[in-house]
């Protein structure tokens, strides 16, 4: 599913910063993987590369058998839209759109017609138990509800993988566990999930914990 071979990435901001140093990683379909590491270890860079938000210098990255390298802005947008669902720490919902419209947005960029995409979005909101909040703006919802909307938005295109970047970072512990349970549920239904987190408690709810150290895989723990 996700196949990274000898990935190197160097940032040039004044001084050259070699972040990923020949990283190799394989994540199979249906896995729930947590990526941990101290700040500066390269875990964010890794997530950006996996999420086709950033390019890499050398090596190869195959996502579902497709080589992801040197894509144009347009193609990477299409790949992100079709193959990847993002869940962010601060939800990143569009503030002036209702819950339903937020969930339907990725389908809008696929060119799905309004009625059809609202119907699909409604199904996913329903799965998150948020049917009655469909017409509310994000500002009228709690953190947990917002994150559930964000998850629904990530799922709505039926992607290959969900990339969750500190999905519980902005939530209290009770809500965090609820959100994690939803992610586990989604994973049980067959979705591959890659999550970056600081929190060992949350990481413990995944199948596999990958620790990044100095730009390479430090250790892999199976639960």
């Amino acid at each position, binding site marked *: 599913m996700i196949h990274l071979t000898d990935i190197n990435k160097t940032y040039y901001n004044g001084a050259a910063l070699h972040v990923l140093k020949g990283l190799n990683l394989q994540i199979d379909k249906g896995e729930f993987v947590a990526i941990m590491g101290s700040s500066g270890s390269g875990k964010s860079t890794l997530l950006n590369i996996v999420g086709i938000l950033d390019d890499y210098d050398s090596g190869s990255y195959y996502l579902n058998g497709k080589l992801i390298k040197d894509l144009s802005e347009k193609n990477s947008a299409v790949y992100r*839209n079709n193959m990847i669902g993002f869940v*962010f*720490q601060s939800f990143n919902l*569009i503030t002036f759109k209702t819950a339903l419209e937020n969930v339907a947005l*990725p389908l809008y*960029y*696929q060119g799905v017609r309004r009625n059809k995409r609202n119907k699909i979005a409604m199904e996913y909101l329903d799965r998150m138990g948020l049917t009655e909040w469909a017409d509310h703006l994000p500002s009228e919802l709690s953190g947990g509800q917002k994150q559930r909307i964000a998850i629904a938005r990530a799922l709505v295109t039926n992607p290959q993988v969900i990339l969750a970047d500190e999905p519980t970072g902005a939530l209290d512990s009770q809500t965090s566990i609820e959100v994690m349970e939803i992610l586990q549920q989604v994973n049980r239904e067959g979705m591959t999930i890659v999550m970056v987190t600081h929190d060992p408690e949350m990481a413990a709810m995944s199948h596999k914990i990958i620790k990044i150290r100095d730009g390479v895989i430090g250790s892999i723990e199976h639960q």
Partner: protein
Amino acid sequence: MFDLDSWQEIWVTITRNKRRSLLTAFGIFWGIFMLVVMLGAGNGLSEGVASDIQGFSENSALFFTNNTSEPYKGFRKGRYWNMQEEDLDILEAQIKDIKYTVPFLMGQNVTVVYRDKSTSCNTKGNSPLYNQMMPQHMIYGRYINHMDVQDRRKVCVVGRRVYEELFRAGEDPIGTYLKLYNINFQIIGVSEPSVRGVNINGRDDEVISIPYSVMQQIQNSGTIIHLIGVVANENVSMSVLEPQVEALLKARHNIAPTDDFALESINVERIFKQFEMLFTGISVLIWIVGLGTLLAGVVGVSNIIMVTVRERTKEIGVRRAIGAKPASIIFQIIKESTVLTVAAGFLGLAFGVLVLDLADKFLLQNMTGEVFFKNPQINFTVALSAAAIILLCGVLAGILPAYRALQIKAIDAIREEN
């Protein structure tokens, strides 16, 4: 392109910051408003002047004499000379492109007596053709005709203002007699010029016209003519005929061909062309100023959309993360600036037209007498080009902000979190 969501988003972005959107839109509104009002005013001015000179035979010239300034063929310098009546026939016979010639004699300022009333006014010796070159509006009666000239009838056409001084309002003067030059003249008509912007030796509503043959008799001047009007055929420019007429007249009267002072001419066609050029110049100036104002408005809109783009960095980043293609971002921004510009622009257009209309209805309609301003309107073509310009401005204003929005990478939306 028509998609409810994208329009809804435009609406939301524009209304989210109402005051700023309004101030920005005002730049465009004002630009278009000024352009429309100035164009309308320019149009009013040129139409006003045009209506003042309309009807006058435009393709014509007037010729009159002065003392010679060069000795020629044994004649001394400074000789005074006159054109003669036969010059008219010779000109018409020898220069084919002359449509007709008009003889004219200047009379004295005389005292005019009607019964117990008297006034003083200028007199002119005219011919029926004068009424063709410079059409008269007859309030009563008729103009001087060929028989009047031929038979040297003591008849006169009275200018409207002279009539008003001597007669009661509404009184029909036809057939009554006026005394001028100590001769009784029967009134055959009351006239006023239908062309107000052009006068030959005084305004026609302030003078009394008599047949030029009678004027020659009064002045005891034989067959001399003070002024010849030459009207050219439609397909020939007066500027081509003018030197031919001058050459012929000079040759007939032994004037040096190089003597520019002895025979003077006023080329009406050239004056009209100068007017036309003046108004073209005014209209070009208006467009330059108007478009300049509009450009300032465009820069304003561009600036404000730029600020909006910066504010929306995160939102645009998220959109790109979840699959917005660069083209859809560009379209979004350009549509936004176009909507703002078009809404403001059309409002400016409508308001400008309204102001012109009100000015026309209430200001100009109540003015009497000398109005050199008429129909301050813009025509449909101008309105259409203004609309096209507005649309173009909207797209232009969006280009730079759209480019800026394109620089926002999806990764920027996420970076702040880690």
